[in-house]
């Protein structure tokens, strides 16, 4: 075994362990000086990125990779002859690789942005410690194959995000937002733990593959599903439970908001994993023989569609009336998460049409349901990049002018040329205009939704157009118009921030020009991995099916 194979073998554990180790070492390293700390953080994150590249390459070529913590032959044999591991297992398929890929991009760019954005603050050693732990926990949530481990990382990300939202402690609103966030997310996490207890009582196992293998969808399993989805929706900001999201996105430092987006998407990933893998034999392999499962899938799909449409509408309409730049973008983020959820719902509801319609519809809807899932997964990365770019632009403006109210801004385009260009690209991407990446994923969502129900598709398109209107309004009030006397001295944002924003813009343009490259190489395999739950199970429990 050469060194490359050894690194590949251990990379799932190291991807989480290296940022954690960095986080533990940062308080000691920052005793030297600030530059050493910054260099240390970025070098260790680059090592993590390198490991992710190795792992991603391996998973894309060789399929699912598992890692058993502690090793050894600790295998339980069931009376039926199936075996499963007692220890914690990390199981990495293409979907996980896709998510950790997004996270590491956001993390590295966010750290680079922090170097210049947070330069004048104090308490930075603690800041970098907590940011690195937040990144590690997000990666852990996305890699783990164990439900309780997922809960632990969920709680780590909850605590670290709360501490970071309250970073500007002299602002009362930041404290309030942080308190709201920790109340909502700790209750959500406790619901998750309760649901985990229900599943544990039924199947006496904690890793996802074992539970997925034996899930029966009894009443207790259904209540566990409802609780888990409610908890993860709470963390992701679906509408009845969205109230924490604009507050915390709006009040946190913008570099934090950028990394928080990745943490939110990790909860969404959890919802994907639970619906399509943990309850895989309910929602994936339905057939006419079990009509009640088909009906359940349909009900579930329409509930999710309804929630998603409400989320989109609330996000867009609330964005209209905001006067604070960051809160406005935060509501746009709520709307974008609604689009991702819409994809899941359409996927589940299309499955119903597929099995109850005629033969011709069956063929068509097989394709549409997979398009909906692809669009939904592709929209995760686009949402991260677009909303993230807008938050970074808001941060650059805040850094330059110390102002975040839209009423008091104006004429900034004269002095902040690059920022203006980045903002235009961000607003076009977020509202789904053709040459950019938002268009590619939204088109897939519209197409599949239209086949299911044209009215919903029209609502989705209109909401997207309204989002464009909102941002054009912002553009005029902030960047255009007469030059304000107090902004005469405003200068362009520092180089570090421009580099961070420029990097995202480059990725957005590449994804916009060559969407098929991403869809064929990353999104489609991810969707296949998600729906192929039997492969996922058989990697942990050999000999099943």
């Amino acid at each position: 075994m050469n060194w490359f194979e050894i690194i590949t073998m251990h990379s799932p554990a190291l991807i989480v362990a290296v940022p954690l180790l960095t986080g533990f070492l940062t308080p000691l390293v920052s005793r030297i000086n600030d530059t050493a700390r910054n260099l240390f953080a970025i070098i260790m994150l680059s090592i993590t990125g390198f490991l992710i590249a190795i792992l991603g390459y391996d998973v894309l070529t060789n399929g699912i990779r598992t890692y058993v913590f502690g090793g050894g032959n600790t295998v339980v044999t069931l009376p039926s002859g199936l075996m499963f591991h007692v220890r914690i297992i990390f199981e990495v398929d293409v979907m996980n690789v896709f998510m950790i890929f997004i996270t590491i991009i956001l993390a590295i760019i966010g750290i680079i942005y922090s170097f210049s954005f947070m330069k004048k603050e104090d308490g930075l050693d603690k800041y970098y410690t907590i940011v690195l732990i937040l990144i590690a926990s997000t990666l852990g949530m996305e890699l783990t194959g164990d439900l309780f481990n997922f809960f632990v990382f969920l709680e780590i990300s909850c605590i670290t995000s709360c501490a970071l939202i309250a970073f500007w402690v002299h602002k009362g609103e930041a404290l309030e937002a942080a308190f709201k966030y920790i109340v909502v997310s700790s209750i959500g996490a406790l619901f998750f733990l309760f649901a985990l207890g229900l599943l544990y009582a039924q199947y006496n196992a904690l890793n996802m593959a074992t539970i997925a293998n034996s899930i029966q969808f009894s009443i207790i399993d259904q209540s566990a599903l409802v609780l888990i989805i409610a908890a993860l929706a709470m963390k992701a900001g679906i509408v009845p439970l969205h109230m924490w999201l604009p507050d915390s996105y709006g009040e946190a430092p913008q570099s934090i908001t950028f990394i928080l987006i990745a943490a939110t998407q990790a909860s969404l990933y959890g919802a994907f994993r639970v619906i399509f893998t943990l309850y895989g034999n309910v929602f994936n392999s339905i057939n006419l023989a079990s009509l009640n499962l088909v009906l359940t899938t349909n009900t579930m799909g329409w509930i999710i569609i309804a929630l998603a449409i409400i989320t989109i509408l609330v996000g867009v309409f609330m964005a209209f009336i905001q006067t604070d730049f960051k809160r406005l973008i935060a509501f746009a983020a709520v709307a974008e998460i609604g689009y991702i959820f819409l994809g899941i719902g359409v996927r589940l509801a299309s499955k119903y049409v597929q099995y109850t319609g005629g033969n011709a519809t069956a063929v068509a809807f097989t394709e549409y349901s997979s398009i909906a899932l692809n669009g939904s997964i592709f929209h995760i990365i686009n949402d991260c990049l677009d909303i993230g770019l807008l938050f970074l632009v808001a941060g650059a403006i805040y850094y330059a002018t110390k102002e975040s109210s839209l009423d008091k801004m104006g004429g900034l385009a004269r002095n902040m040329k690059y920022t203006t260009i980045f903002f235009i690209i961000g607003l076009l991407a977020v509202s789904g205009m053709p040459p950019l990446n938002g268009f590619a994923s939204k088109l897939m969502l519209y197409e599949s939704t239209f086949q299911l129900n044209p009215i919903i598709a029209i609502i989705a398109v209109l909401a997207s157009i309204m989002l464009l209107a909102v941002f054009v309004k912002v553009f005029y009030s902030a960047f255009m118009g007469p030059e304000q006397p107090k902004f005469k001295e405003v200068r362009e944002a520092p180089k570090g921030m421009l580099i961070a924003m420029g990097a995202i813009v480059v990725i957005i343009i590449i994804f916009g020009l060559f969407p098929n490259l991403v869809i064929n190489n990353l999104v489609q395999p991810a969707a296949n991995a998600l729906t192929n739950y039997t492969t996922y199970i058989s990697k942990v429990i050999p000999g099943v099916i």
Partner: protein
Amino acid sequence: MSARNIVAVVMLSVLAVFFILTALMLSFGAPIKYQMDDYIIMHTQNETGTNSAVTTIVFDYRGFDTLGEATILFAAVSGVLMIFRRVKK
């Protein structure tokens, strides 16, 4: 009592009925399945040399969870120290 409170009470009572029905379905004192726990009790001594099965799970079989738990405490301490830092204005 405002309309909002009434809605909250109704939702809470629906949730309560749902939870109680779930609770009534579980069986107390007689777990349905216990292969994993039996395995751990039987193998804790010859695999890890530990007499206490709970400690074996916490630090060996599920050691990575405990690392996460230690991380949570670390993050909470760092967070509290960060929140109580002296802010210069």
